[in-house]
């Protein structure tokens, strides 16, 4: 049961991720990323990180991606046209590098082969995360609020029309 769910979510995530890069229209890429986020939410639930799973939907799907969609629609972007290949030889170079990367990933992942995730763990409940955030990680937490303030001001300053 768990394995079946894992396979469904994992395959969805990977197929959708391929769509992010393969689609020509930015809006379709953004929607593919939305599917990836949804599948990752499923994986987080399987891992017992319930709080993060919900937060993932609230922040990523509910705020960040909507912002992306908003900008794509605001600028009324069109699908990008196929580009001319400047250095066709580089394309063939990609194959050995991809193989190298694949071997690297497989060998790294094999290090953890026999270690199953303990079933039914859920360390990530809201209460424990909140407790940690406001005790051990209080300073980083406060720093992120300053970071967000800076980002907010930066976005306002950047996007404001000049000459007023």
């Amino acid at each position, binding site marked *: 049961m768990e394995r079946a769910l894992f396979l469904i979510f994992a395959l969805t995530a990977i197929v959708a991720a391929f769509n*992010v890069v393969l689609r020509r229209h*930015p809006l379709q890429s953004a929607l593919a990323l939305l599917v990836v986020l949804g599948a990752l939410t499923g994986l987080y639930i399987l891992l017992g990180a319930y709080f993060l799973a919900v937060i993932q939907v609230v922040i990523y799907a509910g705020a960040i991606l909507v912002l992306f969609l908003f900008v794509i629609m605001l600028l009324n972007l069109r699908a990008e046209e196929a580009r001319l290949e400047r250095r066709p030889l580089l394309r063939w170079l990609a194959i050995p590098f991809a193989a190298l990367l694949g071997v690297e990933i497989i060998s790294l992942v094999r290090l953890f082969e026999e270690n199953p995730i303990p079933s039914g763990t859920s360390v990530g409940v809201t209460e424990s995360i909140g407790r940690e955030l406001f005790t051990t990680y209080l300073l980083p937490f406060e720093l992120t609020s300053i970071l967000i303030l800076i980002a907010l001001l930066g976005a306002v300053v950047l996007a404001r029309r000049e000459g007023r």
Partner: protein
Amino acid sequence: MTTIPISWYLAVAAVLFTIGTVTVFVKRNAIVMLLGIELMLNAANLTLVTFSSYFRELAGQIMVFFVMVVAAAEAAVGLAIVVLLFRHRETLNVDEAQLLKL
């Protein structure tokens, strides 16, 4: 009840991260490049959550929380820059935005 090996999660995360990197390299549209960065961040998040569950240690999940905050800040500023770029050049192709002045 069968359990899932930790390597499966890591493999998924690795694949997602690779696709995200490829997106940033291959695409020339600034918005899609930002989407690729989000994909990479999410892949990293998945590894963090995986190890957090494996070691029964909250630190990983807290880290994911911070990554999300940074991603939100990055998206806000990044998209503001994108809007600005589009206003000046009528394009989002990063290859065409190479001059320091208009």
